[in-house]
C-alpha cells in the first residue's frame, strides 16, 4: 500500500512562492501524470514527494506516513531523472545495482538480481559498459532498470523521455506503461508533453503557475476542461476561443462579430449578460458554404496532416482552426462558413476562466 496524499503543500524560494497550496490524492498502484508547461512547479512538486526539496508548508504522506522530514532513502521512492543521472564512472551493472549495494545485499545475490532486471529491459549485453558509450535509449533503460531493481512502492518520473527523439519516445512510453502494468507501483510522471500525459495516465493533474487547475482522467480533461488554461493546453491542435456575451433574450451566446450560438434557455436565463469565452475544438467543427454555418470566417492557410486537413481561419482578429477530412483548397481571403455543433461548445467565465457547465458533456458527445 503506497497511496500518496498531498495536503495544502506550498513551496517558497525566499519570498517567491512557486507552489501555492496544492492538494492531491494518489491511490495505490495508480499512474498519475502531472502535466504543465516549464516553470509551472510540476518538477518541484515531484521533488518534494521524492524528498529532494524541502516542503515550505503543508504535509505529504506516503502510505499513511508523514514524510515531510524524512530523507529520500526513507521514503521508499525510486526516481528516473530527466538527464538519467547515471553514474559515469560505474558500469551499467554497477549503476543498476548501486541501490542494492548501498543496502548491503550480498554480492552474488546482487549480481543475479542485476542480470534479471537488465534482461527484462534488454540490457544484458551492455552490463559491463560505461554509460558514456550508450545511446540515449539505452541510457534511458539503465535509468529505468536502476529504479525497478529496488522494487519501490512509488515510482517518480521527472520528464524522463524529453531527451529522446520522437520515435524512441513513443517506444519508451509503451515500455513504461508495460512496466507499470507488471510492477503495479504507484507512479507519478511529470511531463510537459500532452501526448505522453494522455496516453500514460490513469489520471492527469494539470498544473498552471503553481496551482492545480484540474485533476481527472484523460477523457475528463479532454472533454470537460475545467479552465480555459486546461482547454488550451490539452488537445492538438489547440482549442479555439471566441469572446462573447450570454443573452437570455436570444437563448444564446452572442459573439462580437454578431453571430449567435444557441445554448439551453435555462442556462441562458441564469447568466444573462455574462461575458464568456466560447471554446470549440478544431476536430469538432466542420466547414460549410459561407452563410450556412454557425459563423463566417476568412480563410488564411491550409496545413496537410495526411489523414486530415487543418484549415486556419480568422474571425475578426481571432485565430481559428478547423480540423476535418475536408481537404478543399481555398484562396487566401475567401469567406467560408463554420458549423459548430451545440454539444461541441465549451463555455468559460471570461473573468475567472472557469468552466460553466451547461449540460453533461459526456452525454452530449454520446448523443452526437
Amino acid at each position, binding site marked *: 500500500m503506497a497511496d500518496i496524499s498531498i495536503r495544502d503543500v506550498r513551496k517558497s524560494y525566499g519570498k517567491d512562492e512557486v507552489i501555492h497550496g496544492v492538494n492531491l490524492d494518489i491511490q495505490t498502484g495508480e499512474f498519475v501524470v502531472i502535466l504543465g508547461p516549464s516553470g509551472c512547479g510540476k518538477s518541484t512538486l515531484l521533488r518534494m514527494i521524492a524528498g529532494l526539496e524541502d516542503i515550505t508548508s503543508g504535509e505529504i504522506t506516503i502510505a499513511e506516513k508523514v514524510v515531510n522530514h524524512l530523507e529520500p532513502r526513507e521514503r521508499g521512492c525510486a526516481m528516473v531523472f530527466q538527464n538519467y543521472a547515471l553514474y559515469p564512472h560505474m558500469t551499467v551493472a554497477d549503476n543498476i545495482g548501486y541501490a542494492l549495494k*548501498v543496502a548491503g545485499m550480498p554480492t552474488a545475490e546482487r549480481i543475479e538480481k542485476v542480470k534479471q532486471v537488465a534482461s527484462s529491459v534488454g540490457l544484458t549485453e551492455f552490463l559491463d559498459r560505461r554509460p558514456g558509450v550508450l545511446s540515449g535509449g539505452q541510457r534511458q533503460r539503465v535509468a529505468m532498470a536502476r529504479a525497478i531493481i529496488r522494487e519501490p512502492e512509488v515510482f517518480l518520473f521527472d520528464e524522463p523521455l524529453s531527451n529522446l527523439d520522437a520515435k524512441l519516445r513513443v517506444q519508451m512510453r509503451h515500455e513504461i506503461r508495460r512496466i507499470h502494468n507488471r510492477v503495479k507501483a504507484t507512479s507519478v510522471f511529470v511531463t510537459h508533453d500532452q501526448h505522453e500525459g494522455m496516453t500514460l495516465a490513469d489520471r492527469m493533474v494539470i498544473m498552471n503557475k503553481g496551482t492545480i487547475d484540474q485533476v481527472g482522467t484523460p477523457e475528463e480533461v479532454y472533454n470537460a476542461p475545467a479552465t480555459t488554461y486546461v482547454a488550451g493546453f490539452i488537445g492538438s491542435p489547440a482549442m479555439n476561443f471566441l469572446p462573447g456575451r450570454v443573452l437570455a433574450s436570444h437563448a444564446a451566446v452572442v459573439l462580437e462579430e454578431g453571430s449567435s450560438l444557441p445554448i439551453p434557455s435555462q442556462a441562458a436565463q441564469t447568466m444573462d449578460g455574462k461575458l464568456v469565452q466560447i471554446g470549440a475544438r478544431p476536430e469538432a467543427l466542420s466547414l460549410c458554404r459561407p452563410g450556412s454555418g454557425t459563423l463566417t470566417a476568412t480563410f488564411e492557410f491550409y496545413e496537410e496532416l495526411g489523414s486530415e486537413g487543418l484549415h486556419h481561419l480568422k474571425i475578426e482578429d481571432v485565430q481559428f482552426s478547423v480540423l476535418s477530412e475536408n481537404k478543399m483548397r481555398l484562396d487566401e481571403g475567401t469567406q467560408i462558413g463554420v458549423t459548430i455543433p451545440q454539444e461541441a461548445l465549451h463555455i468559460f467565465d471570461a473573468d475567472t476562466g472557469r468552466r460553466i457547465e451547461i449540460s453533461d458533456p459526456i452525454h452530449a458527445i454520446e448523443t452526437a
Partner: protein
Amino acid sequence: MRRAYFKNNWIAALVVAPQLLIIFVFFYWPSSQALYWAFTLEQPWGGGNEWVWFENFAYLLSDDRYWQSVRVSTVYALATTALAMGMALILALFADRQLRGYKSFRIGLIWPYAVAAPAIGLAFRFIFNPSAGVASYLNYAFPDFWDPIMNGSHAMTMVIIAGAWKQVSYSFIFFLAGLQSIPRSLTEAAAMDGARPMRRMMDIQLPLLTPTFFFLLVINITDSFTDSFGIVDTMTSGGPARATNLMVYKIYEDGFRGLDYSGAAAQSIILMILVISLTFIQFRYVERRVHYT
C-alpha cells in the same frame, strides 16, 4: 571551442611578441645559461671558466649533502602536497554543501592564495616561535615540547605547515569548481538510491573528482619542489643543521653564499629535469586512466 584566424600574420606576431620576449628573457635565456654553466667550472670572482663536461654532476651525485637535500625536499613535497590537498578537499566538500555563510567562507579561503610566500613565512615564524609566539604557550605547559630552532624535525614540520597553508587555497578553488561541476542530479540519484551524505561522497563525488585530483597532484608536487624558497628563507634559512635545506634553497646557498656557480647551475638543471619528468609521468601514465567518457 571557436578559434580565431588572422589573415594578417604580422598582427598576430605583434600581439604575441611581448609574451615571447618575456618567456625568452626570463626562461629560455637563463635556462640555457644554467645549462652552459652546469658543464663548466666558473671561477668564484669571475675571470673565465673551464669546460669540465659532467664533473659538476658527478661531484653532486657523490655528495652526501646533496642527497640529504633531495631527501628533505621529497619529504617536504609529499607532506605539503598531502596536507594541502587533504585540507583543501575537506574545505571544498564543506563549501560545496552550501551551509549557512558558505559564500564568505569561500572568499576567505581563496584569499591566502594572494599572500606572498615570504609574508606567510614571517607570519608562521611568529606563530611557531618557541619563546615568543603562540607556540610558546605549548612550551610553557610542556617544557621543551617545541623547538624548531634546535630540532630539525620540528623545523621541518613548521615549514611543511606554512607551505601547505600557502597551497591550500589554490587546490581549494579547483576542488570546489570540480565538485560544483558534478551534476547535482547524480548526488540526488545516489540519495534516492539510499546513500547517505558520507557514502555519496565516497562513491560519487570523490571518484568523479579524480581528474581534478591528479591535476592538482602534479601542480602541488611541482610547486613544492620549486616554490618553497620564500618560506624556507624567512623561517629557517635551511637549518637547523640543514634539516630544511630543500633543493631550491641549496641552489641559492651554494650559488650566492658559497659562490659555487657551476655547482648551483648543475643542481638547478637536475631539479628542472626532475620536475619535467614528474609532470610527464603524471600526465602521461596517471591522468590517462581517470577520464570517463
